[in-house]
């Protein structure tokens, strides 16, 4: 028995070595292990790369990132407070759960989660998928996904896990990966570059209008993308794509730290619309548990007349640190940021955007709606910067904060840097409360207080909700109500 194990181990090591790995750092992990050993070292990085059967260039890229990361410090400028993260006390890779390790039916899932699924009106088979219940191959969504795949193929759109793209479309990935968010961009992005587990890759060829909304949800392999997700979307000249990330259903995850990186590249005349609904576990009413979500999202309007539009609905996570941004490099390019951030109980969100105007006649628009309830803190942080070359740049920013109750906080931190006198930058900000007379008016017409709050908040967010694709918008509206449950006495 022991001997057989030994042989297998040796074989495994050999297999890894054949992939171009060298064990010079004392790489002792069994490749068949479900998890990388605890902690972060070059070995961990090699392990992940080997697990993914990556080419050498990718490994070197990761190792470069890891070495830089070791010299970096965790940023502390955001208005969020949390216990120091011990990076050596976590796991950085876990194999996707096999069918037999998954819950076998919905009976094994936390009833609280199931209740929320019901409120959101999610069909049963989708509930199973979301809750990670083992499902067999004749599953509905699989056949749906297959139909989608065929359609996409026909249009020439590549839409696959990034690990697959690294193997099958290496040149494309290599050409664009890290060109929007450089490896050394920031502490969390660098960490992600070293250890990212999987994510999504999209390439839309020249002149193609992607025939459907792309959503990770429909990608069969997307169930366990893990805590370090990496997304790269390239819209070639004159193309259009709308991408939906995330899900309104609450997702639990054993990993507390999430550090995703999303890079978008829009070439000449291309348009990318990126919508997110983030509803990770926010922790309980007393602020225990919950995900730390440190995300780097950036889009590069690389070509003239290109457009990138971010829409986000952030309701989950204990801590959100996230600034989807646009580099308006091409002349006449357009960047947009529409955001709803809801914090309840002890949640903290520090979110906003950066619009960097480099090209002539570039335009940007920022609409941010922050809602705080309970003891939550909600910060909008934004930067609009206009470079000397950016003649006639325009920005419009509107930041509205809504407070529910007296113990929460809203903060607005807008920075403006203009180095071109022809630029025009407008900024408007409001802070309001749900007024007692509004609540009374609603209850007098028969709407219970909690539903009234949801209605009023949805009204407050309308401009942003309207940006979401139709089906997503309906779910997001319900989600707004659910996230604020318990916020009125």
């Amino acid at each position, binding site marked *: 028995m022991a001997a057989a194990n030994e042989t297998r181990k040796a074989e495994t090591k050999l297999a890894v070595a054949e992939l171009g790995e060298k064990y010079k750092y004392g790489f002792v992990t069994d490749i068949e292990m479900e998890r990388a050993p605890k902690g972060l070292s070059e070995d961990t990085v090699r392990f992940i790369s080997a697990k993914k059967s990556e080419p050498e260039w990718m490994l070197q890229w990761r190792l470069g990132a890891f070495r830089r990361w070791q010299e970096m410090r965790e940023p502390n400028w955001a208005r969020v407070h949390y216990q120091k993260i011990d990076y050596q006390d976590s796991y950085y890779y876990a194999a996707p759960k096999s069918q037999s390790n998954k819950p076998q039916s919905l009976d094994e899932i936390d009833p609280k989660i199931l209740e929320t699924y019901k409120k959101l009106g999610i069909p049963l088979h989708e509930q199973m998928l979301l809750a990670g219940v083992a499902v067999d191959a004749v599953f509905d969504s699989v056949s749906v996904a297959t139909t989608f795949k065929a359609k996409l193929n026909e249009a020439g759109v590549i839409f696959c896990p990034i690990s697959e793209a690294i193997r099958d479309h290496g040149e494309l990935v290599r050409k664009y990966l890290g060109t929007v968010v450089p490896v050394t961009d920031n502490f969390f992005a660098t960490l992600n570059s070293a250890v990212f587990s999987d994510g999504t890759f999209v390439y839309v060829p020249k002149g193609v209008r992607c025939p459907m909304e792309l959503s990770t949800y429909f990608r069969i392999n997307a169930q366990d993308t893990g805590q370090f997700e990496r997304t790269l979307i390239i819209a070639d000249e004159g193309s259009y794509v709308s991408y939906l990330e995330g899900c309104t259903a609450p997702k639990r995850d054993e990993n507390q730290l999430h550090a995703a990186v999303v890079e978008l590249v829009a070439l000449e005349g291309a348009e990318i619309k990126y919508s997110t609904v983030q509803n990770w576990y926010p922790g309980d009413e007393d602020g225990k548990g919950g995900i730390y979500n440190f995300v780097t999202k950036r889009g590069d309007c690389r070509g003239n007349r290109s457009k990138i539009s971010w829409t986000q609905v952030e309701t989950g996570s204990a801590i959100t640190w996230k600034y989807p941004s646009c580099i308006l490099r091409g002349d006449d390019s357009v960047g947009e940021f529409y955001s709803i951030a809801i914090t309840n109980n002890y949640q903290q969100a520090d979110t906003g955007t950066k619009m960097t105007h480099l090209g002539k006649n570039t335009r940007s628009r920022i609409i941010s709606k922050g809602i705080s309830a309970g003891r939550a803190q909600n910060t909008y942080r934004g930067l609009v910067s206009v470079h000397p070359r950016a003649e006639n740049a325009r920005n419009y920013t509107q930041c509205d904060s809504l407070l529910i109750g007296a113990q929460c906080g809203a903060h607005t931190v807008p920075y403006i840097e203009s180095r071109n006198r022809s630029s025009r930058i407008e900024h408007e900000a409001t802070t309001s409360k749900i*007024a*007692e*007379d*509004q609540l*009374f*008016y*609603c*209850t*007098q*017409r*028969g*709407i*219970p*207080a909690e*539903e009234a709050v949801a*209605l*009023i908040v*949805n*009204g*407050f*967010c*309308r*401009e942003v909700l309207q940006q979401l694709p139709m089906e997503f918008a309906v779910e997001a509206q319900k989600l707004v109500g659910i996230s604020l449950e318990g916020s009125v006495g």
Partner: protein
Amino acid sequence: MLEIKNLHVAVGGQEILKGLTLSIADGEVHAIMGPNGSGKSTLSYVLAGREGYEITQGSVLYRGQDLTTMAPEERAAQGVFLAMQYPVEIPGVTTMTFLKTALNAQRRARGEKEVDAVGVLKLVREKAKALNVPEEMLKRALNVGFSGGEKKRLEILQAAVFQPSLAILDETDSGLDIDALKLVAQGVNALRAPDRAMLVITHYQRLLNYIVPDRVHVLSAGRIIKEGGKELALELEARGYAQIIKDAA
């Protein structure tokens, strides 16, 4: 329908209603008139269950039930409707969405089936037409940027949609032009029914030419000091509150 006995109400520790007694039978329309600050709106808020209006004494029975222990939304579901003196704006929520949400919340509370979007649209359109409320207003955010008169018309439209058992109209006539006043009065009269009662608060006898009340009550300093038939409104108009209050003292 409604039986108020010796009602004392304090707001912010100050007694506003001081022993008000009033009862309205099914099918009747009563008017309350009284000087500014006499407590008319306070009475309407207490009946609707607004927070901060503390009943220190007395009782309110609605269809034989103690109204005071019910939450505002419960009262609404049970048929209590208050057309407010100052309707509230709710940005971003279209009038249609609001009406649908409210109607279905009431129905749900009563254990009735909800009406789908198409059904609500049909119902609201029909009522809106009668009140000359333009379609375009239904698509706008509730009361946001509406003129004073438009807001009042929308209150009556809601009464028409919800079909309450007890409708309290707090100065619905103020801010209306002459044509709108007639339309609103028509709308209110259309609501008259044997199983419905109305309490109309107004400063002007003119409204009562259109909505002819069964009883008129004069409220002064938190008490009903005089009541009578519809001719009392004419007397008030002719002689003024001061004289009547003096007589009553």
